[in-house]
C-alpha cells in the first residue's frame, strides 16, 4: 500500500459523526491490480470487530476488492453488541465505523448464515479468491474442577451473554438470591461482571441491559462480590479504567486483605507506566486510610467488593444432599518469581469460602467450526503466520481466532489490519491466484436458497435496529434488544 501513489479527493461527509473513513478514502492507483482480469472477491466469516476491520482495510486499499461478510446470527457486530458492558456505551461507538463499511457499495452483509452448517468452508473457497475466518471465541475455558456443573456456577461468557441479550444465553436465569458471589479471574470481564452485579439499578436501567436482567438484578440479594486470582496484585489482568469504576461505584465499599499487598509498594519503582498506575490505585484503595468524606461514604455503603489473591479453585462445594452450590474450596498459592512471569505454586493449604454464585472468568476459547480448517486445540487458535492459515492456500484468519482471546477493540483492529495486509501482499505477488473470476455471493446465495436458508441483509438488520431503538425510547434506554432469533427474523422479514 505504501508503494501506491495516493491522491486524495474529499468525498462528501458521510454522517454527522464527522465523515468517518469513507471521507478519507483515497482514490488510489491500481498498481499491479490493473493487470488482473477480474475483481478480487473476499469472504469474511464473522461480523465482529475482526471481520469489519479486515473488510474496511481491504476495501480502502484496493478499488476493485469486493467483500462479503457472513454472520451466524441475524444481527452483526459480535462482541461489540454481546460482550461490551451495557454501561460502556462509548466503546460501542465503533459500530458507526462498521456501519459505514457494511453500507459501502463493495461490501455486503449476509446474516443468519451458519458457516460450517449451512455452507462449508470448502464451498466458500470455491466461490471466493480468499476466505478470512474471523469468528472469534464462542467457547470458554473450563476450570476443570469437581462441582463445576453444579447449579449456581456459570461461565463469565454465559453471564455476560445473558445480560447482553445473546439469544443462546436467554435461559440462563442465574440465581441471585445469595449474599456472596465469587468470581474466578481478575481480568476486565471479571470486573464487568462484578460491576453489573453491584451497580445501583438506577444506573443500569438507563443502559441497553436486557429487561429480564434488570428485573433479576432488582430482586438480587447479592451484597458481596469477591474477585479471585491465582497470583498477586502485580499480576492482575484488569486495566485501570475498570478498577477505577469499581472504586467509584456508588453505594459500595472496597474490602481487601492488606497482607496480600506485602512487598508491592517496594516493587512499584521498577514497573512500566501502565502497570505502575494500576498498582498505585490498588494500593491506595487497599491500604490508604480514607479521608473523612470517603470514610462516611464507605460506612453508608450497602455492598462490598474485593480482590482475593493467591487463590486457585479446587472444588465447588454442594449443599449436603442438594445439587446447589454452598461454597467454593480455594487452594492457597505462593508466588515464585516476580513480574509478568511469576508462577503460582500450591502451598498445600486450602480455604473454604461460602457463597451461592460462582462465575468463572478465566478466558474465552475458540472452537473449530469446519473439519477442513486446521485447528490447534492446545492453543485453541487456527495455526497461522501473519494471518495466513498454515497449509491452507487462500485461507486467512483475524481477531481472536488468530491470536487467542485477549485484547480490546484497538488490539483486534491492528490484528485485522495486519491480516488484510497479508492478503493484499498475496494479491500483489500472485501468491493468491486471481487469474480466474470467482462467482462470490452469486453461487453461495444459490446454494443457500437450495438449502432453505434465507440470509438477513444489512437493511434487514437496520429494521431490527430501528425496532430495538424505538422500544428502548419508551423506557429511557438506548435500545431494548430483541432476545430471540425468531423475533429478529420476524422483524427482518416483515
Amino acid at each position: 500500500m505504501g508503494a501506491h501513489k495516493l491522491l486524495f479527493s474529499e468525498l462528501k461527509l458521510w454522517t454527522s459523526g464527522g465523515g468517518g473513513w469513507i471521507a478519507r478514502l483515497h482514490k488510489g492507483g491500481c498498481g499491479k491490480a490493473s493487470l488482473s482480469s477480474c475483481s478480487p472477491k473476499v469472504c469474511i466469516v464473522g461480523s465482529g470487530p475482526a471481520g469489519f476491520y479486515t473488510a474496511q482495510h481491504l476495501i480502502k486499499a484496493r478499488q476493485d476488492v469486493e467483500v462479503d461478510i457472513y454472520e451466524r446470527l441475524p444481527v452483526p457486530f459480535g462482541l461489540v453488541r454481546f460482550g461490551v458492558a451495557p454501561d460502556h456505551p462509548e466503546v460501542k461507538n465503533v459500530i458507526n465505523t462498521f456501519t459505514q463499511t457494511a453500507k459501502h457499495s463493495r461490501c455486503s452483509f449476509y446474516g443468519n448464515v451458519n458457516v460450517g452448517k449451512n455452507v462449508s468452508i470448502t464451498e466458500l473457497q470455491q466461490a471466493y479468491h480468499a476466505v478470512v475466518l474471523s469468528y472469534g471465541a464462542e467457547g470458554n475455558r473450563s476450570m476443570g474442577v469437581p462441582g463445576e456443573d453444579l447449579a449456581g456456577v456459570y461461565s463469565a461468557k454465559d453471564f455476560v451473554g445473558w445480560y447482553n441479550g445473546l439469544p443462546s444465553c436467554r435461559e440462563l436465569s442465574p440465581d441471585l438470591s445469595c449474599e456472596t458471589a465469587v468470581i474466578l479471574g481478575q481480568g476486565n470481564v471479571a470486573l464487568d461482571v462484578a460491576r453489573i452485579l453491584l451497580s445501583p439499578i438506577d444506573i443500569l436501567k438507563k443502559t441497553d441491559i436486557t429487561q429480564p436482567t434488570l428485573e433479576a438484578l432488582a430482586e438480587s440479594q447479592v451484597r458481596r462480590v469477591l474477585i479471585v486470582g491465582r497470583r498477586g496484585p502485580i499480576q492482575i489482568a484488569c486495566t485501570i479504567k475498570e478498577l477505577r469504576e469499581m472504586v467509584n461505584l456508588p453505594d459500595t465499599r472496597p474490602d481487601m486483605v492488606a497482607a496480600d499487598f506485602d512487598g508491592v509498594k517496594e516493587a512499584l519503582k521498577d514497573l512500566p507506566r501502565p502497570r505502575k498506575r494500576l498498582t498505585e490505585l490498588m494500593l491506595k484503595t487497599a491500604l490508604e486510610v480514607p479521608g473523612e468524606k470517603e470514610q462516611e461514604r464507605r460506612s453508608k455503603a450497602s455492598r462490598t467488593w474485593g480482590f482475593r489473591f493467591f487463590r486457585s479453585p479446587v472444588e465447588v462445594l454442594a449443599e449436603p444432599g442438594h445439587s446447589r452450590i454452598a461454597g467454593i474450596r480455594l487452594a492457597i498459592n505462593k508466588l515464585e518469581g516476580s513480574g509478568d512471569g511469576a508462577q503460582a505454586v500450591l502451598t498445600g493449604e486450602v480455604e473454604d469460602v461460602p457463597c451461592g454464585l460462582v462465575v468463572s472468568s478465566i478466558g474465552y476459547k475458540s472452537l473449530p467450526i469446519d473439519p477442513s480448517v486446521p485447528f490447534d486445540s492446545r492453543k485453541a487458535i487456527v495455526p497461522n503466520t501473519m494471518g495466513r492459515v498454515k497449509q491452507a492456500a487462500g485461507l486467512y484468519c483475524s481477531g481472536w481466532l488468530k491470536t487467542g482471546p485477549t485484547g480490546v477493540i484497538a488490539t483486534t483492529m491492528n490484528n485485522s489490519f495486519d491480516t488484510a495486509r497479508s492478503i493484499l501482499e498475496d494479491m500483489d505477488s500472485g501468491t493468491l491466484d486471481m487469474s480466474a473470476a470467482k462467482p462470490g455471493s452469486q453461487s453461495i446465495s444459490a446454494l443457500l436458497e437450495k438449502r432453505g436458508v434465507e440470509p438477513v441483509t444489512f437493511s434487514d438488520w437496520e429494521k431490527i435496529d430501528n425496532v430495538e431503538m424505538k422500544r428502548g425510547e419508551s423506557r429511557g434506554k438506548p435500545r431494548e434488544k430483541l432476545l430471540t432469533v425468531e423475533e429478529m427474523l420476524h422483524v427482518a422479514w416483515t
Partner: protein
Amino acid sequence: MAASAAVRSSMGLTLRLSRVIPDCSTCPLFRLKCNAKNVANLQRRGSFDSLRTINRHLQTSIGDVNVVYIDRSGQRIPVKAKVGDNVLYLAHKHGIDLEGACEASLACSTCHVYVSAAHFDKLREPEEREDDMLDMAPMLQENSRLGCQIILTPELDGIELTLPKVTRNFYVDGHVPKPH
C-alpha cells in the same frame, strides 16, 4: 507595524527594507520549506531572515496553525489548520489514517499519536481518563497522547504528529497477552 517601524529606525537594515518583501506566506513552496527546517535554524540565519519571519507573522492570518502528520510509512503530510481544530478530525479531513473507534469519547486508544518534542510540553495536561486509555495503547512512549484530546492552539504551530507503527513483529516479539 510597530515592529517594522522599530526595525526601520535601525540604520543597518534600511537598505534591506527598500527591497520588495514578497508575500511569501501564501506560497505553498515557502510553507513547505519553512516546515522542512526547524525554527532553530531560521533563528540562526541572521537579521534578514528574522525580518522575513516577522513579515510572515504579520501576513499570516490570525488562527492558522501548521501541522505535520507523519504516517505509518514515514511520509510527511503538512496540513494547514486553524486554532481550535481537533487533531483526530483534522486527520480525517485530510485523509490521514488515524482511527477514532470510540469517536473521541476516551473509550479506546486507536487515535494514539506521538507528539514532537518541541510541542509536547505545550499541550494541556492529560486528564486522568486519557492517561487510563493511553495505558492500553501499544508502543506507549514518553511523548504519547490521544489525538482526539489535542485541540490546536497558536503555540502548537509547527507541531508534528507521528502515527505509531504497530508492526507485525509486535505480535512475534515478546507477545504479552493483553487484557480484554
